[in-house]
């Protein structure tokens, strides 16, 4: 019941939050001194020619009129078209989403599967050489710039060792998509080589994304486990003679993971909104690079469309994090 109330409360705020975001993005994109109409008209266009194109595209209308028109179309599921390509924004986003989602999911799986156990182990053997080594890894993960890491991984694994491809989602053009998730599509069609190829192409960008995420998860897990290990109920369990693995993996971890779960959710949301640098280094055809080129060109509709996507993701992810928190932590259910 509490969960339902929580979900409804969050969903009720979804529309006003998104609306506020849209207003802010709309105004900022219109007032910054970059004119996409002039870019489209070309570098040799005179002011008169630019204004003629502006009228043709409807960007000469007052801003409130443009915004209301945009909202009316959005209510019908129409995010408009790109000033530059004339392609529907919905089509562009839908085309690129699978690439970002697939990369993010793989990166998060790797960082969770590696990060949580490392955090636990680091806490249990606190101040041991293992703990120190793990902390070097976590500090590196947070300090190293992802573009540098990506390039170094390319140099080592793609160029020197030849174990992985250099960039892209697949060598050349992809086969016709079923879901757009190459691992899923390959599994559905039973295409082993395609599955292997997709996985090899995912390796370096996923590792680049996973490393800082892993570092964050290790730190939060370690801190959480250390904190819980000090508590009275753990002391009681030790006194009762429960085996250490049982204390740690059955009782301690559940309490210690509440903050880690929050971080997993937030990281997932951040990455889904577009891992721009990683996508740029590896030419990953996802949302991140689309967002950057849209912003640089001031492609109004594309910027708004990306904002809707990113805003929705954060709202949904935050809701899911709260739901999972409530499920994991009985204290949340009791309040």
């Amino acid at each position, binding site marked *: 019941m509490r969960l339902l109330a929580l979900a409804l409360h969050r969903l009720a705020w979804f529309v006003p939050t998104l609306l506020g975001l849209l207003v802010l993005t709309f105004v900022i994109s219109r007032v*910054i*001194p*970059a*004119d*996409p109409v*002039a*870019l*489209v*008209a*070309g*570098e*040799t*266009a*005179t*002011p008169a*020619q630019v204004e*003629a*194109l502006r009228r*043709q595209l409807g960007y000469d209308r007052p801003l409130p009129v443009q915004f209301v028109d945009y909202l009316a179309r959005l209510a019908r599921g129409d995010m408009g*078209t*790109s000033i*530059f*390509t*004339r*392609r529907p924004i919905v089509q*562009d986003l839908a*085309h*690129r989403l699978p*690439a970002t989602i697939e990369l993010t999911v793989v990166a998060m799986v790797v960082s969770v599967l590696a990060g949580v156990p490392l955090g636990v182990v680091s806490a249990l053997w606190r101040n041991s050489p293992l703990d120190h080594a793990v902390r070097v890894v976590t500090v590196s993960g947070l300090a190293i710039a992802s573009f540098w890491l990506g*390039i170094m991984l*390319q*140099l080592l694994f*793609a*160029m020197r060792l030849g174990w992985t*491809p*250099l*960039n*892209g989602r697949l*060598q*050349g*053009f*992809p086969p016709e998509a079923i879901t757009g998730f190459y691992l899923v599509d390959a599994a559905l069609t039973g295409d082993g080589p395609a599955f292997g190829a997709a996985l090899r192409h995912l390796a370096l960008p996923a590792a680049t994304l996973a490393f800082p995420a892993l570092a964050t998860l290790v730190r939060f897990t370690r801190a959480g486990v250390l904190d819980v290990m000090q508590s009275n109920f753990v002391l009681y369990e030790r006194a009762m003679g429960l085996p250490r693995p049982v204390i740690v993996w059955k009782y301690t971890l559940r309490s210690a993971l509440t903050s880690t779960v929050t971080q997993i959710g937030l990281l997932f949301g951040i990455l889904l909104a577009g891992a721009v640098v990683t996508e*740029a*280094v*590896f*030419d990953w*055809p*996802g949302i991140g*690079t*689309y967002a950057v*080129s849209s912003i*640089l*060109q*001031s492609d109004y509709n594309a910027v708004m469309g990306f904002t809707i996507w990113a805003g929705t993701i954060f709202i949904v992810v935050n809701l899911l994090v709260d739901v999972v928190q409530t499920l994991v932590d009985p204290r949340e259910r009791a309040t």
Partner: protein
Amino acid sequence: MIDRRSWLVAVLALVLLAVLPSAAAAQTRFVFANESPYDTMDPHAAFDVGRVAVRLNLYDGLYRWLDNPPKLEPWLAESHTVSPDGLTYTFKLRRGVKFHDGAEMTAEDLRYSAERILAMKKGAAALLATMIAPGSTKAVDRHTVQFTLTKPAAIFLAVVPEVHVVNSALLKKHEKDGDWGAAWLTSNEAGSGSYQLSRYDPAVGFIAKRFAGHFMPWGQKWIDEIEFRTVKEDNTRVLGMIKGDYQGTGGYLPNDQVKRLREAANVKIVEQESMRIKMFQINNQRPPLNDVHVRRAISYAFDYDGFNKDILGGSVERNPVPIPNNMWGVPRDVKGYTYNLDKAKAELALAKAKVDRPITIGYLQGFSQTEQAATVMANGLRKLGLDTKLTSEVWPTMVERMKKPETSPDLVVYWISTYYADPNNWIGEMFHSGQWGTFKASSFYKNPKVDELLDVALKSTDRKVREKAYQDAARIVVDEAAGIWVYNTKYFGPWAKNLEGIRFSPIGNGQEIRWVYYAK
């Protein structure tokens, strides 16, 4: 025990396998790594170097720029005539040219294509619209198209290659809400070019297969399939060339990356002088830069040799005038400015205006070489005792600022590329006062004598008259230090070592692949 019948079947199978044609020989492929995304396949929506591969490989025009120095070669047109008043251009078209869908190309397709460009107001429209009006282009007969100019314009023929011909019947079929088929063409093609589109992904690039029925004869060898792929990072393009993932990439890489590629065993660097001037625009309207002596002082304060030879390792050619060295119209007697602080101080002493505020120097974010040039300039000005302030913007924002004298920085450093091979592309569009409001004319320079010379050059079809006019205009502009011209770019094009037939032109940058083939 295998019976007789099974043996017979097996033998028959073996015989058939032996006599049947063997599997088709492997097709040759070529992959080009491109910095810019191919976000649209519409040849009339873009007029930039970044997406030129679409226009050159999938489409044809009346004429085509080839080789270096660039020559205008008949392409879809067999010939043309110009009326004595310079207003009417009549082109006779080749017969039997086919679009990729098999339809025959006629004069109506030319007419439609010109009208489409003007109606869409994108790409080359801004340039064409200064010369032809909507509705003025006529299909005189099935193989004759006529353009009537609004005023004589000597550059019309130089610009006409940008009228890339589209299949009008195909586009009319896909027209929606009067959009000239734009929504459809952005992800498809309607051309007659050497290659035919087979795959397109706006997030990846495009693949095209050889169009065997192209009107221009193919050589003995060719590339069967071309792929142009978006690879944003310089480093990734370079590594990909070394690894062999790509067989070509853009030729304006940083010097250190070119050095890496020279050392790769499977890469060769094709070196050509291009037509792409690096320069500082000076805001001639803003005090104290409206004083010619201040501008001359600034011109003497830039260390040209230090920048070109030391920082850029001698990979560029000093270009002291506002027209590329290798273009006609350059006054060869003009040596331009040198780095000379004594002369700079002498000019400052003559200036009536006092330089009592920081000189703002704008450069482009993401283009480190512009930052380097701005820093060298700032260094020189500081040695004169002048204060400076560096400011950077991304390209779209800088273009916007440069359109008005009030918002443009005092100096802005960038490149002027070749949109068409005519001096007007540089000096005409930069220094005619009628061009104010375009980013190229952000010098806001105004000299009635120069305007007159440029008008003469634009109107006359006599090459000698035009050449003298551009030379005289260039002399004045240099003498008045309306801008600072640093170098002409060299093209260092990385290509796979076993590729031959590459034909570089400053318009196109070697990205027309129909000439290219694998030597072995």
